């Protein structure tokens, strides 16, 4: 399975939740599969999805699901100790780990070689870390929502992208409708 197939499968779970989605093709795929006002699409700023999601989870009580990538987490590796040490039980970090920088031409990341992001997250102090196959992602995500416990999921999948259009929505519109969804 590739990322877009995972997103298609988990779209019904994501639909009613606050979602912060990683820059580039992941946001384009989620936007094309199931656009929702409760999705915050990152149009730039590689690496900060997990940080934006953590700030959001600490500031309000609704569950927050962050869809991140292995390359983006590697860009902002300092996020994992911050997540571990500021526990928000309404926070789920779903790292779709396809071992590559998907948006830039599928160059390999170190997570696809010797580096285990699940072990890094554990070493940083994250207490509920689950590595799973792409096929199990929906079940693991649903269980994480039900557990109401801060969870880091590393979903191992194949490299590859679906061809989806660029998001042309204005960033202020994305942000405004997302904030209304947070308040609703």
């Amino acid at each position, binding site marked *: 399975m590739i990322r877009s197939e995972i997103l298609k499968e988990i779209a019904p779970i994501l639909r009613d939740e606050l979602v*912060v989605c990683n820059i580039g093709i992941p946001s384009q795929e989620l936007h094309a599969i199931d656009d929702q006002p409760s999705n*915050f699409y*990152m*149009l*730039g*700023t590689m*690496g*900060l*999805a*997990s*940080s*934006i*999601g*953590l*700030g*959001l*989870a*600490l*500031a*309000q009580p609704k569950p927050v699901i962050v869809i991140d990538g292995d390359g983006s987490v590697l860009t*902002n590796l*300092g*996020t994992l*100790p*911050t997540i571990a040490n*500021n526990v928000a039980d309404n926070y789920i970090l779903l790292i779709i780990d396809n071992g590559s920088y998907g948006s830039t031409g599928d160059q390999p990341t170190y997570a696809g070689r010797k580096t285990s992001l699940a072990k890094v997250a554990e070493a940083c102090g994250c207490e509920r870390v689950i590595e799973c196959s792409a096929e199990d992602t929906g079940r693991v995500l649903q269980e994480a929502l039900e557990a109401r416990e801060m969870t880091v999921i590393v979903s191992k999948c194949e490299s590859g992208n679906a061809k989806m259009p660029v998001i042309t929505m204005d*960033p*202020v519109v*994305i*942000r405004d409708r*997302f*904030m209304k969804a*947070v*308040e609703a």
Partner: protein
Amino acid sequence: MSIDSRITDDLVASRIEFVTTVPCKQLAGVIDEIDKRAEIAHVPSNKEDEGMGLCAGAWMGGKRPAIIMQNTALGVTLNTLATLTQFYRMPLPMLISYRGELGEPVACQVEMAIHTKALLAQMHIPTYHFHDQGDVAELPKILDYTFMCNKPVAILTDASFWGGY
């Protein structure tokens, strides 16, 4: 009242409830003070751009944020300021220690100090410079201004303001 307490009181009075910090010796007192206040969630970050991400999320979650950082890190935050804070029109007060100004004992600090105001001007970030302790009187209005216009706003605080090194 100490300058650290006064700054923290102003943050609380402006309903700032989420503060992220990356430490600087000059900011140590205000960071300690913020950490003690029940009204403020203090979330230290490992890098300033990470902190700006946290602030963006906190603001969308309904809490007024602020970041406390050193000017030497301004360079690592430029992309975040442009593509997150400014692109999505988010407010962010940035209380910045202005290292490398008069009285600075460490030569390397001067290297980013000479770029600090130019970078902020290039980024079109409204910038205030606290040099005398009395300048702190403007802080409440600067905070109001930040949340009125939904922009990042920089407050540079130099060694003279903090009373030396």
